């Protein structure tokens, strides 16, 4: 148990360092690149912004004349108070306010898609390995590799066109029906599911192949391992061996990859959201890019990074809970 706690602490330390790197990158990128977004605001509000507001904007955009380390200090202290500056596109709304629910919807969509894809892909992979050379094992991997080669958003466009627009089976935009107020009622949950279905489906289709192959290959290794052969020799039912011995052991390395996959699927989710007008961070990212809303862009990057890092650490915790070996 002690070893596990130590390992988790080390992982946490690593994520903290990664977070610091992200913060520093976020600080440096706007200061090293050309471009002067603040002038946009100064120009529009000349004469009316009080000196404090202008100073605040200058800080946000890194336009102070102060030496870099002082700028960094004020940047960090603003960040510590959750102050990400003012959005340009939605001026004068603070970035933190614009971020709003976005992260939650992206998390729901990306998290849900990863989870479904992981469970489904791993199960199929285990089956494929179990019946090695069988129909499942011959057809699925190349097919899924082909599907996996499509850009997320392209499949999303196709799905939106066929199932949303032509067949009208699923809604084409938003995270829930506009006439519902968010609540923990069944109609609302149902609405959330039907709105997330198509975007999630495209993400699952694209990422399924990776999980299947990963599971299949580790599974083949595990099936050859001694304790599995021993179990077979003991005359346990194949089903029991598959579920209790082989699949369980083969799953562990995949769980470790789960956190990493989140980052990837998140990238896909951002693009898919754009196609489905899903009110997550992807759509905001696009708004920020098109509107040259740099403060919002920086804020989004930080928020998404922190979310991914936290998710990774959670996965580590789950890994420890599942895997006795990391505890020793």
């Amino acid at each position, binding site marked *: 148990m002690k070893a596990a706690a130590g390992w988790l602490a080390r992982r946490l330390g690593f994520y903290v360092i990664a977070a610091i790197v992200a913060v520093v990158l976020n600080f440096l990128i706007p200061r090293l690149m050309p471009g002067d977004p603040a002038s946009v605001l100064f120009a529009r509000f000349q004469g009316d912004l009080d000196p404090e507001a202008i100073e605040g904007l200058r800080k946000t955009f890194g336009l102070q004349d102060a030496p870099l380390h002082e700028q960094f200090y004020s940047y960090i202290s603003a960040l510590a108070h959750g102050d990400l500056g003012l959005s340009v596109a939605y001026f004068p709304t603070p970035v933190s306010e614009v971020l709003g629910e976005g992260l939650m919807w992206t998390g729901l969509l990306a998290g849900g898609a990863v989870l479904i894809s992981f469970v489904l892909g791993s199960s199929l992979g285990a089956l494929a390995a179990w019946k090695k050379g069988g129909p499942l094992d011959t057809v699925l991997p190349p097919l899924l590799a082909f599907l996996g080669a*499509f850009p997320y958003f392209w499949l999303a466009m196709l799905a939106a066109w066929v199932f949303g627009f032509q067949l009208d089976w699923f809604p084409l935009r938003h995270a829930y029906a506009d006439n519902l107020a968010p609540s923990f009622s069944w109609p609302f949950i149902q609405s959330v599911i039907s709105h997330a279905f198509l975007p999630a489906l495209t993400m699952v289709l694209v990422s399924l192949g990776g999980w299947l192959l990963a599971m299949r290959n580790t599974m083949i290794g595990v099936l050859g391992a001694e304790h599995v052969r021993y179990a077979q020799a003991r005359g346990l039912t194949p089903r029991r061996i598959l579920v209790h011995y082989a699949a369980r052991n083969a799953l562990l390395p995949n769980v470790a990859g789960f956190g990493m996959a989140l980052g990837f699927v998140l990238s896909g989710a951002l693009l898919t959201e754009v196609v489905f007008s899903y009110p997550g961070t992807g759509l905001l990212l696009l708004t920020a890019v098109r509107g040259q809303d740099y403060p919002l862009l920086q804020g989004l990057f930080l928020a998404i990074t922190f979310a991914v890092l936290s998710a990774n650490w959670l996965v580590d915790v789950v890994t420890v809970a599942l895997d006795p070996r990391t505890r020793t």
Partner: protein
Amino acid sequence: MTRIFTSLWKSRQARVGMGLLLFFFLMAFVGPFLVGDPLAFDGRPLLGPSAEHWLGTTGQGQDVLAQTVVGARTTLLVGLITGSLVVLIGALVGGLAGTLGGKTDDGLSLLINIFLVLPGLPLMVVLAAWLPAGPVSMCAVLVLTGWAWNARVLRAQALTLRQRDFVAAAQVSGESWIRILFVEILPNMTGLMVSSFIGATIYAVGAQVGLEFLGLGDLGVVSWGTNLYWASNDQALLTGSWWTFVPTGFCIALLGFALTLINFGLDAVTNPKLAHPQRVGPTPFIPSAVTPSPVSRAAKP
């Protein structure tokens, strides 16, 4: 290299992949001379496929076939250049970390792992938004966000090689680490570097198309990503003009598929026993931290 190629040729999947790849190379580098100007307005907008325009016209009345063919060139070029740069950096950083070991390895590994865990697309978008649009910026952004995968894989390989006798012998005989890295380690990782290059190219094509779709590329250039951007801008869904986005999408998928197939074949060559299957780069669609290995064994017992 020849050795790798001849053994690759034995794999049916790799042959299919290489055939497809050859097709795309022809399309990218010869095709543009066979089709018309992709930016010329030589038809009414949004015409369906016909004898005159085999794949119809775009919302601006440009020939979809010409755009798809010419788009292959930009996309493939950016993909290949990025792929090479990514492998180069990956080999240097990974090789260095693996060869030197110790504190250097700890530091570089930390750097690699941090870049692995930072979400790629938002970082790309932030960078691409600040840089002026164009192929050079695009490459820079893709390299900066994509090098870590290869560095990780190549470091692991370098680390393994370091344990081998011939490297140990070289170390004992007092050879400099630079010589060890370039003479003993890197040449012995060619297979892995080739597969890393392929993986990195898949990644670069996918990420590039994604960024361009968001409008972060140079809209004046014809590429697969901008084709999809325009299709979406011209309301392809609403007008039911599927021909404006289906051909490009299929090309992207087929190219990715071809490269994946080659890599499957390559994995079988470099790792016949699949004892320690290595992932080959940050393909955006395969959760790469886990280690899937070739399908080749699935196809044949």
